[in-house]
């Protein structure tokens, strides 16, 4: 009896100790940032310039009540003021993410001079036990592997020009994952958005073989059946990634193929280079006479309005505090050129300054000319 009691005491002590060591890690995590960004846009066609200001805050909350359960809430609060909102009709309506089924945004102030807007960017519960993982709620489903364009992100696209949105938009979804080996998973996800017939259901099988991350995707995206595949590996010292996604014809919706190929490499003295190509079979490949008629509304099916898209990036850490990055995007056929230079300076431990440019050039009425230029100055404080 005494022995049993002793064993019980030892076991209890072990359980208590286990709880103690587990509870050393906080059940709560709070972080986020505050950004102030000013920008000025020059419209070279109509000889106008517009300025704008944005105060941008994000608060990320994570609660881990048990080892298996994580609850995440992330809020994005933005305050806009300046000429930009005065000149843009219905500016506040543009802030809504149409991928989101539930309206969890609040428009605190909507005046001609100031707009204050909050959105619940993530709100999910995550359950993870042994090989299983389930996540329910507003989340982002990142299935893509390449840097600029992700045809395999069938649930949620993003605009690569929107550099001030590093978390990218989410979607209201349920996802179940089973891990069958160290690098092998099967995922099944369902998402619904605000539009009619906009449901997405898809599955992904991923594995690692021959030093390549490989995956295959199939599903139905807004009524179109789709299949796709992606890989991330290397050829000698260079990275080599790719994504393909094919959508079958469904009534008025035409078949579509999106392909991305990407190469990247780091050279001596810290030069990072990246080159990639996106082919969008339904994209425009002829010169558009009015640049402003190009529909820049992007979706998982339509990552760029243009058919062939080439982007090359070079970046270099000039000092540990200062880094420079330049990207050049060119679309043959439409003859559109975008220059994206940027500089980043680390002002203090959690304080960063960015100077970013976006210059658009296009062929208009038989003349290749500058369309618009935007400059952004951003200060970011992380906490």
């Amino acid at each position, binding site marked *: 009896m005494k022995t049993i009691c002793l064993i019980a005491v030892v076991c209890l002590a072990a359980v208590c100790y286990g709880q103690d060591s587990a509870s050393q890690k906080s059940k709560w995590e709070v972080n986020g940032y505050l950004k102030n960004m000013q920008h000025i846009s020059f419209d070279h066609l109509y000889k106008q310039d517009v300025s704008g200001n944005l105060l941008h805050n994000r608060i990320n909350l994570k609660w881990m009540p048990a080892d298996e359960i994580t609850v995440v809430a992330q809020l994005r609060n933005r305050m806009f003021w300046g000429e930009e909102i005065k000149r843009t009709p219905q500016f506040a309506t543009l802030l809504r993410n149409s991928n989101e089924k539930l309206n969890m945004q609040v428009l605190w102030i909507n005046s001609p001079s100031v707009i204050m807007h909050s959105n619940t960017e993530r709100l999910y519960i995550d359950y993870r036990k042994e090989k299983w993982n389930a996540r329910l709620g507003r989340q*982002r489903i990142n299935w893509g592997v390449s840097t600029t364009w992700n045809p395999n992100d069938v649930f949620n696209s993003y605009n690569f020009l929107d550099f001030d949105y*590093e*978390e990218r938009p989410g979607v209201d979804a349920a996802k179940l994952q089973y891990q069958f080996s*160290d690098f092998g998973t099967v995922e099944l996800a369902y998402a619904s958005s605000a539009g009619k017939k906009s449901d997405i259901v898809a599955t992904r099988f991923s594995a690692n073989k021959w030093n390549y991350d490989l995956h295959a995707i199939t599903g139905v995206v807004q009524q179109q059946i789709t299949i796709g595949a992606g890989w991330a590996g290397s050829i000698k010292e260079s990275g080599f990634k790719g994504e393909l996604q094919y959508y079958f014809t469904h009534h008025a919706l035409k078949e579509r193929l999106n392909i991305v190929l990407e190469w990247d490499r*780091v050279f001596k003295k810290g030069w990072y280079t990246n080159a990639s190509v996106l082919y969008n079979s339904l994209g425009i490949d002829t010169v558009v006479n009015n640049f402003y008629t190009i529909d820049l509304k992007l979706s998982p099916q339509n990552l760029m309005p243009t058919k062939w898209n080439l982007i090359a990036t070079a970046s270099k*850490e000039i000092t540990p*505090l200062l880094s420079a990055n330049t990207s050049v995007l060119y679309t043959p056929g439409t003859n559109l050129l975008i220059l994206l230079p940027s500089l980043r300076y680390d002002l203090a*431990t959690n304080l960063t300054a960015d100077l970013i440019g976006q210059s658009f050039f296009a062929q208009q009425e038989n003349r290749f000319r500058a369309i618009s230029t935007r400059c952004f100055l951003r200060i*970011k404080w*992380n906490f």
Partner: protein
Amino acid sequence: MDDTGYPRQICKQVLVIIGCLLPFVQFAQTAAEIVQKADAKMRGKTAIVEISIKTIRPGWSRSMDAKAWTKGTDYSLILVQAPAKDKGIVFLKRKKEVWNWMPSLERTIKLPPSMMSQSWMGTDFTNDDLVKESSVVNDYDHTLLGDTVISGRNCYIIRMIPKATAAVVWGKLIVCIDKTDFLELHTRFYDEEGVLINIMNGYDIKLMDGRLIPTRFEMIPVEKRNHKTEMIYRSVQFDRSIEDGFFTTEKMKTIR
């Protein structure tokens, strides 16, 4: 410290030459063993370490805290704990593959192999220094050059030349290892042209998890005045059981 080679008198008589070569061969084996012992001491079969890395430059400095799990030379996982802007970033190395987890985006990014030779997050350490792609034991030929005294400790001086087949960033290393406790107290890193690039010194020898080890290392780039990176071991656990399945992209998502 001299790096002109192993001083050895060349004798005319064949027997004497053979007599000279024999200890040379023995020393070569011993040098490899010494490096192997020093490496095994810092690395263990597995290691879980919490480190602070301070990058010091004229006029400013930045500090970073990280936790690393390593198993031999094949597997390592590094979690950035501070500063706030980088907290939660994870690096995973599994044999020849390297991934990066970006917590803000919740996405895994596969890195090109050429990333390994680059500076790690603005420090004077390369990715290779941290995740130890190259093995100081297997990827080099070791020669015992002599001995010296560092901080009152008697040390071996060992030259390490990378093998032709090894993918190593350096052209040559000169390492000083304590004779009694096998502590790597001083290392000189030379490039392929034989130019001295970095000097690393080990300090603050303490008993950590039952092992006597240097707990502070300084990496000093030779040609840059007042530049250095300091790495301090805050906690160390050696030889805890870590499954290979720990070093996965799935683990990167949940590690804290």
